[in-house]
């Protein structure tokens, strides 16, 4: 990072960033790369808010009787933390930022199939976000991100309708993005780019888009009916007239379980790309890993009943859902084994993206295996609704999806911004995040087994020690997340100029200059080689 290259405004060739200036060029752009950056800025904004709420919660839980806020406020904190983090950060993060930026580049197209629809998706996301922010400012909502009836429809007098409208609208941003990706990947691949030459990131994005288009509408209708019921006090979910609260749970979880695969699948795609590049080797069992992404997407729709084992769902339905839930774990296991085998006989280098990817594998494996406790009926009866569940899904979402997102950002940052970030700081932040994360969430597994329920503003004193450890970990994790924010922004102005292919990776996106021109490719490339052609022969045939 020599100071010689510090002058910020070196006159780089025309690219999508300096093609046009002014707020109009950003707010009315139809360029998928600029829309990706719009998404990046907005989800970072929501991530900071959600993270702040999480930090307040951990601070509050240092003392058994609650150290910071009233119970009602604590309920609003965990609800808004859940809603903002899931609907406004995790679900859009990789698909909308890295997906939007990379899908056209990776398949050799000039843009997505429907660029205007893409911009509309971002505006829909922002309108939904404004509704949710309004609900936070106007008093918050205290129903939990799951909105279980009859509490949310009849007994809660907080801003349920506003947040329901917000989530309802933002759902359509997810649907339209998924639709855009599926049409683009099917119809606009470069000549020669067959399905089995696609980078695995695109397999993962394709599988995620299937879930987004097929699952999110069911969430939309559920939240729509919930808002109706909250406003008019009549509806099919609360028992006054004979409605069934479990019907809401069935409809809600039909989307919300596949939603966790929306969050993890793209991260798996990112990790496949990073592992292949930094081990300089083709992913072990490419086709199997590709198909397991689609298998996770399809099986993910069959398993939602494991959220309802103790809610009075029938014993036999519990049996069916438990069996199916175990099946969905197999493709994830296959992926982990394949990533590990990719390292075999590779030539592994350790820059920041690789650290994040390896951190992902570690934490995702822990998260996935703890899912076994919750899929088997007998142990789930004990662990359901306790901190074991909180630890499990944070291992998958924060340990998996966020590590994957950060890994992807570090891997494609030179291509996105045309600048390189300081590798030393990046590896340090990866380590801090890994340590802080484990210190925050591993104690919660034990708390869960001990029986401490979720969503408790105050708890019996015997759980205090583990809660203090968790809160300590949360502050380390918070610092870990701030460091990348700093050096990414720093690198935009002062980072050394990045060349077209800083990591020597394969893939069409690396054949464009960094940052790429607005039309991506002077002329549409023709693909002749397999994916991840890192071996000597393939490189020779390329030269």
């Amino acid at each position, binding site marked *: 990072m020599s100071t010689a290259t510090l002058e910020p405004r070196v006159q780089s060739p025309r690219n999508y960033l300096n093609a046009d200036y002014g707020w109009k060029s950003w707010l009315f752009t139809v360029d998928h790369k600029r829309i990706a950056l719009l998404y990046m800025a907005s989800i970072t904004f929501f991530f900071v808010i959600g993270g702040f709420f999480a930090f307040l919660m951990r601070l509050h839980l240092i003392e058994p009787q609650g150290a910071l806020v009233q*119970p009602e406020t604590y*309920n609003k904190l965990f609800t808004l933390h859940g809603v903002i983090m899931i609907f406004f950060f995790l679900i859009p993060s990789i698909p909308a930022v890295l997906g939007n930026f990379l899908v056209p580049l990776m398949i050799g197209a000039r843009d997505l199939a429907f660029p205007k629809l893409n911009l509309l998706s971002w505006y829909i996301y922002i309108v939904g976000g404004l509704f949710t922010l309004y609900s936070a400012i106007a008093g918050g909502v*205290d*129903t939990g991100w799951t909105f*279980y009836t*009859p*509490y949310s429809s009849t*007994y809660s007098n907080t801003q349920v309708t506003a947040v329901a409208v917000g989530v309802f609208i933002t759902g359509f941003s997810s649907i339209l993005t998924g639709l855009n990706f599926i049409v683009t990947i099917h119809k606009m691949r470069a000549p020669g780019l067959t399905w089995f030459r696609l980078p695995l990131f695109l397999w993962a994005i394709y599988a995620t888009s299937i879930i987004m288009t097929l699952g999110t509408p069911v969430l939309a209708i559920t939240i729509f009916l919930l808002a109706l019921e909250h406003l008019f006090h009549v509806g099919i979910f609360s028992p006054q007239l*004979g409605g069934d*609260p*479990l019907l809401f749970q069935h409809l809600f979880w039909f989307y919300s379980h596949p939603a966790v695969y929306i969050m993890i699948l793209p991260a798996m795609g990112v990790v496949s790309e990073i592992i292949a590049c930094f*081990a*300089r*080797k083709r992913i*072990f*069992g*490419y086709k199997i890993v590709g198909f397991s992404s689609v298998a996770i997407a399809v099986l993910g729709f069959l398993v939602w009943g494991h959220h309802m084992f*103790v*809610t*009075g769902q029938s*014993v036999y339905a519990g*049996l069916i859902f*438990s*069996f199916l839930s*175990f099946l969905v*774990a*197999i493709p994830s*296991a*296959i992926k982990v*084994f*394949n990533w*590990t*085998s990719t390292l075999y006989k*590779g*030539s*592994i*280098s*350790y820059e920041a993206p690789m650290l994040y990817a390896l951190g992902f*594998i*570690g934490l995702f494996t822990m998260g996935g295996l703890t899912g*076994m406790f919750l*899929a*088997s009926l*007998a142990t*789930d*009866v*004990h662990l359901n*609704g306790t901190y074991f569940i909180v630890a499990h899904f944070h291992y998958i979402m924060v340990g998996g999806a966020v590590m994957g997102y950060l890994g992807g950002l570090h891997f494609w940052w030179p291509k996105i911004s045309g600048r390189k970030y300081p590798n030393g700081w990046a590896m340090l932040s990866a380590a801090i995040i890994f340590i802080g994360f484990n210190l925050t969430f591993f104690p919660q597994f*034990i708390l869960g*087994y001990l*029986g401490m*329920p*979720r*969503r408790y*503003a*105050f708890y019996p004193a015997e759980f205090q*020690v*583990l809660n203090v450890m968790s809160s300590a970990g949360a502050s380390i994790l918070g610092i870990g997340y701030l460091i990348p924010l700093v050096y990414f922004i720093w690198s935009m102005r002062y980072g050394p100029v990045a060349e077209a292919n800083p990591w020597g990776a394969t893939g069409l996106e690396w054949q464009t200059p960094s940052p790429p021109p607005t039309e991506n490719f002077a002329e549409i490339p023709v693909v002749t080689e397999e994916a991840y052609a*890192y*071996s000597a022969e393939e490189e020779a045939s390329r030269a």
Partner: protein
Amino acid sequence: MQGIPIQPEQASTIAQSVDHLYFFITAVTLFFSVLIFSTIFYFMIKYRRRSPDERPKAIEGSLPLEILWTAVPTLIVALFFVWGSTLYFQNSEAPPGAMEIFVTGKQWMWKVEHPEGQREINELHVPLGHPVKLTMTSEDVIHDFFVPAFRVKKDVLPGRYTTMWFEPTKLGTFHLFCAQYCGAFHAGMIGSVIVVEPDEYESWLQGGVQGETMEAAGARLFKENGCVTCHLADGSGPAPSLAGVYGNTVHLTNGQTVTADDAYIRESILSPAAKIVRGYQPVMPSFQGQLSEEQILDLVAYIRSIGLSQGNAKEKQQEEGKK
């Protein structure tokens, strides 16, 4: 284990078997985590990049390996599934002869009723070594009756009964939590389950403020609300006689047959038109909003009592009459 508690107490018959499954899954998790992490660390060290122009040979993959790490996890999860499900099946239905206790969840407190008339708030006294079946309902939102020491938990839903059972094997006081978010003081909706010696439980039952037994309360309500005017004992009134009904099958106008359990009686009180007995008109008014959950439980206990004892005598008469 002074500093950090690791394991909750095992205070019910099923606690040990659930813990065995829990530790087995933990062992498998640790084994695979260690296996994967050590393999990764070994590869990371052995195959670190020596020189920038190192080009490893392309390895396509290996089908036998793929089959191996598909089959082995499938077998392991099959084992978890079978073990977990059989345990769950055994624990889902209370054994015959279990003691009946009625629990009503209400925003932020637990109301417990023993059939003998004893009523408790946020506390549940149970005898040692005797299976206890809880029939639970909620007056407002979804709650969840969770006793970590017994490894049992069941949601408590408004508008219907859910049941669960346990058999305490240790004396003492154990935590009772509400494990389904239910509003502002969800965290305060806690209590304790107190396991006492059976004879001590007997004396506790007799002692204390003596409320009328549930059956007596049910009988009183049966008269006060005018049920007795239609549901005549000999069945000559506009409504079927309820003697001998509980537990037996009932033939409905639309040809279906249902067993008259708690849920059927509760539904017939709150929305009578849903299931009309064959040969009768839907004239019964709904008592929605007039009877509290406890009162409905008392009526159920009463109908159950007249169903089992006098009912058998009545049934025999009817059989002879028919023959």
